[in-house]
Structure formats: C-alpha cells, structure tokens
C-alpha cells in the first residue's frame, strides 16, 4: 500500500513543526508562559529541520535498483516465458545461484552449467537461466555471516535474512517456514514499499518470475540455505506484507 504524501516523515514532520510553532506564537502573545512558548518553538523548529528527507544518494540507489530489474523483465516479457521461475542453488555444475524461467510448463529441471544462459534440453526443458537480480544484495548479507550458509538449513537462512532485513534495512521483518516440501516466506516492507508498488505497476509478472532485487535476495537466500531448487508457486501482497509460497523440486 502506497503511503499518502502527507504521511511520509519528511512531510508529516513539517506539519507537526508548524503546529508547535503556532502554539508557541499563541503562548508568547496571549499568555505569560514564556518557557512553554520557548519549548514549543524549539520543538517546532527542531522537528522541521531535523527529520530525515530522502537524499540524492538514496534516490539514485532506488533508481539503480529499478532500472536494472526493469530491463531484465522486459527481456523476459519479450521472450514470452513462463510466469513462474525456479530459484536454483549452487551445485556441482553451478558455482552460483540461478533463476531458471521455463519457456512453458515446468517439466523437470534441466542440467544447467555456469556458462549456459539459454537452456534447450529437449521438450519441456527449455528456458533461460539468469543470475538472480537479488544476488549482489544477498552476497552483501552473506559477507556479514562468519560461515557459509549453503546447505546449512533453515536456521542459517533465517540468520541471512535477518541481515537483509534489519542489517541492510531492506525490509521491516520476515518469516521463513518449511512444512514438508512447501516453503513459506513472508516479508514486511517498510521504506521500500513504494519502490515495490512502482515496480509492480510497470511489470506485473515480476514477482512470480524472479522477484525484484529485494524479494529475489530473500528467495535465493532460502534456496541456498536449504540447498534445494525452489519453484515459486504463488505470490500475494496485502498492504506492505508480501507472501511467497514455494515448493522444493
């Protein structure tokens, strides 16, 4: 859910500041409460000037994230590939994770090697394998963990996601649950919710194919921790809560 402009901190702080300054003017002119007036004026000016507003650096970072993923998905749209991707963890033939997007219905995962992008292993096993858009973000989070998460299980996946959410500020909170072959990931966005909504307006299939860089980092982290290919089964977004249902294949 996109926040109304006036609800954003940079605007709401100014409204609060103006209210405090108005109160201070009233206190100075109509009453003898000099200290209260001074306090109110100080709080008003402080709130207006100190509350954060997005910097050029942040805007550029968001624009960078957006432009990269949109060109990625424009290619996938033009190729008319399936709407549902599979996140592949590294294995004996693959040195780093891949997002495999089948051309049609998924009929088993073909053998994929590092140097392969376009996969053609016969009927039902055709598609493309790309580096997940969230791979650089995931690498940053993994650098903060003292051990390799690959194949270490759900707990290491949660630890890695903790670095993505709280450490890097990509999400407010998350949950990762596994029940049999079904994996459920919930991500609650905070400051990147507008970024998510803008992206979804421009490319509707983005979430089920690979996810944006933020979701893709979480999905790839889960796949690497469980050391298992994860097929995106469903995606839901309600307000700023994202829910992914995945299946081990």
């Amino acid at each position, binding site marked *: 859910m996109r926040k109304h402009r006036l609800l954003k901190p940079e605007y709401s702080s100014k409204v609060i500041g103006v209210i405090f300054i108005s109160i201070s003017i009233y206190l100075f002119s109509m009453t003898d409460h000099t200290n209260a007036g001074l306090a109110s004026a100080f709080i008003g000016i*402080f709130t207006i000037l100190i509350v954060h507003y997005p*910097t050029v650096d942040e805007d550029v970072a968001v624009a960078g994230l957006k432009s990269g993923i949109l060109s990625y998905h424009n290619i996938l749209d033009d190729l008319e590939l399936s709407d549902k991707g599979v996140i592949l963890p590294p294995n004996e033939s693959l040195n780093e994770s891949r997002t495999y997007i089948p051309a049609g219905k998924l009929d088993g995962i073909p053998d994929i090697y590092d140097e392969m992008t376009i996969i053609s292993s016969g009927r039902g096993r055709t598609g493309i394998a790309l580096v997940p858009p969230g791979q650089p973000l995931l690498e940053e989070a993994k650098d903060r963990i003292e051990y390799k998460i690959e194949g270490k299980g759900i707990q290491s996946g949660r630890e890695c996601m903790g670095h993505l959410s709280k450490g890097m500020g990509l999400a407010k909170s998350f949950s990762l649950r596994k029940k049999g072959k079904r994996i459920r990931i919930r991500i609650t966005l905070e400051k990147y919710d507008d970024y998510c909504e803008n992206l979804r307006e421009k490319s509707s299939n983005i979430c089920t194919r690979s996810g944006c860089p933020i979701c893709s980092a979480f999905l790839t982290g889960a796949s690497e921790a469980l050391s298992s290919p994860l097929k995106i089964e469903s995606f839901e977004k309600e307000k700023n809560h994202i829910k992914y249902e995945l299946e081990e294949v």
Partner: protein
Amino acid sequence: MEISQKLAISITLWTVLILAVIGGQSIELFVIMILIGLLIARELSSVYIRPSIAFRLDAFIQVGIVVFIGVVMRRILSILEIL
C-alpha cells in the same frame, strides 16, 4: 523508524520533561538544559546519523552555545554589578 525521527521524539520528550520540572521559573536554566540534551543526543547518535543531519544538529548546538555564552556573560556582569 528512522534515526532522525527517534532523535526528534527524544529531544521533544526531553524538552517536555524539563518544562515539567522547571516550569516557568528560570528561562536561563531551561535553555541550558535543552543545550545539554542536544549535546547528549549528538554524542549518542554520532555513529548512526547521516552527515546532513549531523550538520543540522551541530547548528542547533552552536546556537545553544552562543546563548549559553550570553547567559554566562550576563551572570558575570551582574556579579560585578556592572549591569
């Protein structure tokens, strides 16, 4: 919540607390207590805040120091019975 929002809330609470304790008694003490709050906030948040916020916080502190010097000068002059 952004660190700057936390900063604004904590300074507001500090100011309200001082106002509740001092009330309308001494404007000089009130201003000095706000300055102390700003200095504590600056020191505690120095690692986390962006340079732009630090610059603005420093501007508040500089104004507070100028006021503090004024208060001290006024007090000295009154002790010396010049004012």
